[in-house]
């Protein structure tokens, strides 16, 4: 599932998921699943200590059930943040599933979403996993922010490709994404030499893509929030800033 599943709109995906158009509803639900499946999977692995195959099944089943029963449509922004509400739904879902474990055979759920579990598992092994005993909200929130930023990155990549700005994006990817934990991160001057550009051009390209990235993150937060207040709260919590 790609970031393209998100409707290119500043309106909330949640509005679409509760709207009257069944096609738009299904598309919006899929978009929400795209943003939340990775946090859900990681949360199941760490918090519920589910083995990888169990976590995969539970993730698939959870979203299959959510789509089938139009779970997202029942969300009330006035009562909780979507993120918190979804985690509560997930906890309830797992509890019910574990109660019924004796009666149900594992793996019976439908596989509706093409989700990259192998990739998620690889990431879990590659990086320091968060403490499973940590605050469940914090754990879920961290994986959620990872998901939002990954989606924003994909969105910026797609936009840069469409606008023929592959070099600026390549610079951004090398310096700001791959370079973040690379002890040999190139300097602006080295990047300029590698791409045959003046250093000032590298600075300008990076500044431009960073702006696009920030814009994409804020867009995603807006789309994934149930209300303007929630959007602002999420932006403040995630970025520490008041969005414009």
């Amino acid at each position, binding site marked *: 599932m790609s970031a393209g599943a998100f409707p290119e709109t500043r309106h909330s995906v949640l509005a679409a998921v509760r709207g009257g158009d069944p096609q738009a509803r299904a598309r919006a639900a899929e978009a929400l699943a795209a943003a939340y499946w990775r946090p859900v999977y990681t949360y199941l692995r760490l918090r519920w200590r589910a083995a990888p195959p169990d976590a995969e099944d539970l993730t698939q089943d959870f979203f299959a059930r959510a789509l089938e029963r139009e779970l997202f449509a029942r969300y009330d922004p006035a009562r909780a943040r979507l993120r918190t509400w979804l985690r509560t739904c997930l906890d309830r879902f797992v509890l019910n599933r574990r109660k019924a474990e004796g009666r149900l055979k594992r793996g019976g759920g439908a596989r509706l979403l093409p989700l990259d579990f192998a990739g998620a598992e690889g990431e879990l092994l*590659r990086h320091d996993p968060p403490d499973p005993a940590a605050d469940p909200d914090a754990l879920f929130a961290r994986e959620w922010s990872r998901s939002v930023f990954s989606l924003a990155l994909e969105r910026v990549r797609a936009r840069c490709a469409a606008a023929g700005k592959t070099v600026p994006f390549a610079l951004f990817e090398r310096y700001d994404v791959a370079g973040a934990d690379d002890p040999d991160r190139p300097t602006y001057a080295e990047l300029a030499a590698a791409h045959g550009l003046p250093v000032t051009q590298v600075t300008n390209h990076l500044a431009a893509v960073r702006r696009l990235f920030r814009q994409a993150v804020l867009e995603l937060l807006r789309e994934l929030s149930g209300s303007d207040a929630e959007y602002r709260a999420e932006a403040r919590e995630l970025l*520490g800033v008041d969005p414009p």
Partner: protein
Amino acid sequence: MSGLSDAALEHLRRLAAEPEADGEGGFRYALREEVGRGGMGVVYRARDRELGRDVALKALPAPADPALVERLQREARILARLDHPGVVPVHDAGALPDGRPFYVMKLVRGERLDAWARGRALAERLRTFLRVCEPVAFAHARGVVHRDLKPQNVMVGAFGEVLVMDWGVARLRAVAEDDPGVATSSTIHAGETAHGTVLGTPGFMAPEQARGEVHRVDERTDVFALGAILRGLMAGEPHGRALAAVAAKAAAPEPEARYAAVADLAADVQRWLDGEPVSAHRESVAERAGRLYRRYQTPVLLVLAYLLMRVLLLLFQRDG
């Protein structure tokens, strides 16, 4: 979609948190990379579009906490008050497009004192130490106690110029608004962090500061930190008991036992450099002889050589 590492996640979070300083909104400064981050603020290299130069812009990492806002604004005000070549000058202050307060200062290029000192001769280190003392003494004269002096907060430039940085926990004593040159005896507590809060760095923090005895923190608290810095600069170099006594007096546990003013400490270090007796140490006859020998080494050797020659001549004459 590839997963992001924790480091990439944190870096991207900072990038997304940066205000939209470029282009839209007409904000004067274009933020570039982050060059430092501390408990209180984030420092960015920024481009001043109006004057076409690079500057350092310090802003709070997030809005909200009024205590931090006050501290940042207070630091800017204190820096503006300290017009000295050894204090980084403030150019501008205000609020970022996202509302966070900031101030702009000169972008300092140089090395931290501890890194700079590696491999340098003791005398050179001490001369630089004296240049650290100058802005601190200047600040004291204007009623400002730094309270967080340490090698990490001292930058040495390519030409040996010294800048004392990070006045974020400095304390301002009451002064007349129109006469920044004279400090009075009372202390302003507005802007002070909560009474008794410990701010500073272990190893360089005076005992009274570590114990949170805010009322006892004064110029001698900075003298203690300077003593600890001096001790660090002497490490690994033969220096004798006199200089060790200077550092020990500066970093004495009780404020009353320390130098009363930075100028007194600096004077003793200067005396040591000049081969003169220091006030912190009563020297023995042997030490005095050794010091005088080091101070007058060339004339002493010349006289000795002359006397030796005379003795040899006398011996030759007698034998002849």
